[in-house]
């Protein structure tokens, strides 16, 4: 199913990325979907990968860790710490991709409700412009991997002489 809602990505400063998206649902529900470990596997990762919740302790100081599994069997871990959890309006958490450990960004998700619809904004703050640009350039890894998968498929097709 394709959605008519649009995901907007902008660069509000040289160390931030801002993502906005509106949902046709009250914010309690959006907050629940974002904080329920049973629901994370259904939306967090790319479509061609599995997402497993290894740890998800949604409270200030609690840790989270998700593992993504690619069709080729390789896995990749993401982790962080919840800094602020204010139901149903705000979640502040750190974000780190394990192969690039030490490069930590801070994500602030804010939920505002109007007429039963919810506007989600996620502001990612990086320690420098280089870190921010590196994250964008990587396509957040997942995007890169999808690109990489397609590239591999293309190579396989070429090899098979299609």
């Amino acid at each position, binding site marked *: *199913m*394709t*959605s008519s*809602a649009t*995901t907007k*990505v902008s*660069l509000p*400063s*040289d160390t931030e*990325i801002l*993502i906005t*998206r509106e*949902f*046709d*649902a009250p914010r309690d*529900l*959006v907050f*629940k*979907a*974002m904080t329920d470990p049973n*629901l994370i596997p*259904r*939306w*967090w*990762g*790319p*479509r061609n990968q599995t997402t497993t919740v290894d740890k998800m302790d949604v409270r200030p100081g609690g840790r989270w860790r998700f593992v993504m599994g690619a069709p080729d069997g390789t896995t990749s871990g993401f982790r962080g710490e919840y800094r602020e959890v204010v139901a149903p309006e705000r979640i502040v958490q750190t974000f780190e991709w394990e192969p690039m450990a030490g490069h930590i960004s801070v994500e602030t998700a804010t939920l505002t409700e109007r007429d039963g619809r919810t506007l*989600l904004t*996620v502001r990612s703050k990086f320690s420098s*412009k280089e870190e921010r*640009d590196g*994250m*964008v*350039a*990587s*396509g*957040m890894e*997942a*995007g*890169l991997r*999808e*690109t990489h998968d397609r590239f591999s498929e293309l190579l396989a097709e070429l090899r098979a002489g299609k």
Partner: protein
Amino acid sequence: MQATLSALAEPNRRQIVELLRRKPRAVGEIVDRLGLRQPQVSKHLRVLSDAGLVEARPVAQQRIYSLRAQPLKELDDWLKPYRRTWETRLDQLDEVLRDLKRQDKGKKDVHDK
């Protein structure tokens, strides 16, 4: 790409780009709208121009600045994989929300009976 990002890293320059997004404008108009001094605006315009983001053409006694699409298009292309990752994630979240709403409604209907 880096020239575009550096040029846009400064808030006043981003505001100039926003102003020019709507229509080409004379320097004086940009000065008025931003409330900055003319030399400052000229300096910002020079940086934007060096990065290829804006171009100027003389009209009568004025210089009219307009946006150039190419660097912004490159910026957009650069953001595309990152945006796609979030798009997929939030499209899927949207699907989960639809399911949750259906379940909630189901429960309510049972309760109402």
